[in-house]
């Protein structure tokens, strides 16, 4: 059994108004960062998982993301997996 670390980045899906991102973007513009656009705010989850191999670990984390960690109706997730 091997141990893996998964870093999961969750963001609101494209096309869904990210009110936090928009507010931060407006604040940035008000302090002269007009060159910054498309601010999106998300969540970052780090977890460890025991699995026999990389593919199995990825499958477990993907399943956990779909079932609980992210809401596929509004959120996309990206997984970065490495053995530790």
């Amino acid at each position, binding site marked *: 059994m091997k141990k893996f670390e998964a870093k999961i980045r969750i963001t609101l899906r494209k096309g*869904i*108004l990210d*009110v*936090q991102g928009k*507010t931060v973007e407006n604040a940035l513009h008000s302090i002269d960062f007009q060159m910054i656009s498309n601010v999106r705010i998300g969540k970052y989850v780090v977890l460890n998982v025991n699995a026999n191999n990389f593919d199995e670990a990825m499958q477990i984390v993907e399943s956990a993301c779909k079932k*609980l*960690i992210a*809401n596929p*109706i*509004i959120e996309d997730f990206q997984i970065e997996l490495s053995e530790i």
Partner: protein
Amino acid sequence: MYFGIVVFPGSNCDHDAYYALSVNAGISVDLIWHKEHTFSRTYDCIVLPGGFSYGDYLRCGAIARFSPIMDEVIRFAKNGGYVIGICNGFQILTECNLLPGVLLKNTSLSFICKDVFLKPTAISPFTQSLTYDDILRIPIAHGEGNYFADDDTIKELEDNEQIVFKYCDNAGNVTELANPNGSIKNIAGIVNKKRNVLGMMPHPERYSDKILGCDDGLKIFNSFINYLRLI
């Protein structure tokens, strides 16, 4: 007639709902701890109350959806049992897919606690005795009440007349100004396609006793209880 109110860690409207249903509406009510796996009696309706179940961690309702009792609630709803989700209860119902869509952060980013006006916009067991001319004053108290669903889902909700409550002004006009949180189409409450599951962000239990200055919320509970007595 027996209603069951599920109590999650972090529920804070469970006792308000208990009082409104037992004292104001005059029916028998049990509080059901979320760790139970089954119901101890036959219920006419299950209520998922407002609050901050599991501290709203991860997403509102996301963790409560996996509380042990929820398998029984889902089974009950799928067999046609009536379920009402208020505020956090509505969020839990969307997380477990008993209702479509999701509740996003309010567009203002603020937690909003104030009275709003609602109007019934479709016939359902829950709104049976109400008319489209009724304008109800009911409080909201939420940070994530901005109802969102994709275009196809919204069209389906409209085609099937599943949008049962909309935010309106005090004259009953459904306007952008009367929309407190950015919800699509001013949606304040919806039912599922089978019309046995209701989710709504406003809190009828908080305005069910005249001593509070308004009992418009009781009209919704009474409407539903009358319906149950007739069937």
